[in-house]
């Protein structure tokens, strides 16, 4: 990307032979090679995690702004990989969902294998009105069900978004919890209930 930009600039200016030679170096590739050397498996965090997958590579190479056509194609792929519950029920228990949303556990080298992780949701989102310690990387989800309703379509959207946020927004900051195996089907259902159940404090007045 940067190399390409420099080439265009250089064609216009001439006085940039040195700059071009510098920019042509692929620092990204050097950085990846360096990380592959330096990072080691610890606990469940295996060394192969520094390898980017196809979606990560596209987002990394385009500074999270892929060309529209590519983004749409890849979002479609992500969408197709979402596994909806076979029984068609998408709402679980909002109380269990609240506990999951609170928990920041999961997938780090200090987490144990086989212990179910949490959703990390409050790290990034305002959700229930009683919790004042919430992050701001994502938008507020307070009153989510009240604003959107809880029709089958909205339930499907919420389930899909938590399962694979990238199916809707390719380079979103939000993890792909179902896709990554970070949350199970029943955990995602509980989180959908937290957001959409009319009884959930998220939707209280």
């Amino acid at each position, binding site marked *: 990307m940067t190399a390409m930009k420099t080439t265009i600039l250089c064609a216009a200016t001439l006085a940039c032979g040195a700059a071009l030679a*510098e920019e042509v*170096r692929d*620092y*990204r590739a*050097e*950085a*990846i090679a*360096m*990380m592959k*050397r*330096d*990072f*080691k*498996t*610890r606990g469940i*965090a*295996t*060394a192969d*995690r*520094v*390898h*980017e*997958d196809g*979606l*990560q590579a596209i*987002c*990394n190479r385009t*500074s999270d702004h892929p060309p529209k056509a590519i983004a749409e194609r890849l979002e479609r792929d992500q969408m197709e990989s979402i596994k909806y519950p076979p029984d068609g029920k998408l709402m679980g228990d909002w109380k269990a969902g609240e506990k999951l949303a*609170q928990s920041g556990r999961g*997938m*780090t*080298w*200090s987490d144990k294998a086989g212990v179910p992780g949490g959703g990390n949701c*409050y*790290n*990034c989102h*305002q959700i229930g*009105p*009683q*919790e*004042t*310690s*919430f*992050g*701001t*990387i994502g938008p*507020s989800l*307070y*009153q989510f069900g009240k*604003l959107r309703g809880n029709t089958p379509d909205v339930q499907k959207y919420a389930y899909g978004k938590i399962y694979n946020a*990238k199916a809707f927004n390719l380079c979103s*900051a939000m*993890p*792909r919890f179902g896709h*990554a*195996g*970070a949350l199970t089907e029943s955990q995602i259902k509980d989180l959908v209930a937290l957001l959409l159940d009319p009884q959930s404090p998220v939707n209280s007045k």
Partner: protein
Amino acid sequence: MKQRLSTLMAAAVMTAAFAVQAQQPMKKAPPPAKAAAPAKAKDGITAEFEKFREVLEEDNPAELFEAKGEDIWKHKKGPDGASMAQCDLGLGAGVVKGAYVQMPRYFADVGQVMDAERRIVHCMVKYLGYKEEDIRKQPFSNDSKTPDHVSVITYVAAQSRNMKIAVPQKHPKEIETFRIGREIFDYRAGPYDFSCATCHGSDGMRIRTQDLPNLRKPAEAIRAYQGWPGYRMTGGFMLTQQWRMNDCFRQQRFPEPAYLSDSITALLTYMTATANGQVYKGPGIKR
């Protein structure tokens, strides 16, 4: 000294209070929550901590570690009689004043860019006979032990107190290291698709109540330096920049970077050179 002790004891009491609070879910009266723009909330611990940090910083609990580091730097001898007076931190053998704010830098004797922590450990192994594999066994402090190299780092850092950060970007390797560091900063991978930039790439972000500096900006990149090494309130020991990087990679759900590795030097070079020109206030206090 008496006054220092009393402050430190107060710190110990506070530390205990933090530890207890940290275990309990915080239940506070909810402010009116708004769906659109979440109000900036600070929990009780943060507010208390910030009040206390000012009191503590006047007295500076890091001084105990500084003193120990100074003793090692000035008096300890290696097996063949060498000492840290031979250690070149970039400004000449034995020169400590101002060295901390001018690293990472290129060191011709090793043909590499090294950050302060890496260089200091290098010297302690070379001149004082410390074993690198021992240091790697416990690179970071915990409540039972603050390793010697951490005290030396604290001493060296204190000798740059109130100086301007001036990380050199002249040698081709220094420039290359900066650019690789920038790539690592933006590199998303792992099960959560996180990069440093996910949490530190835009303005005004928070995780829970912790403010996340936008480390791409000079005015906030200073936070890669400011207060590091830092005295940890909730434990009473010193933590270094290398520890901070290690723990952020843990939160990023990455595998573990080897201690003193090239990748960490590159990241530190990127962030600290971005902060060039700003004033480093010396070892600090961290929650």
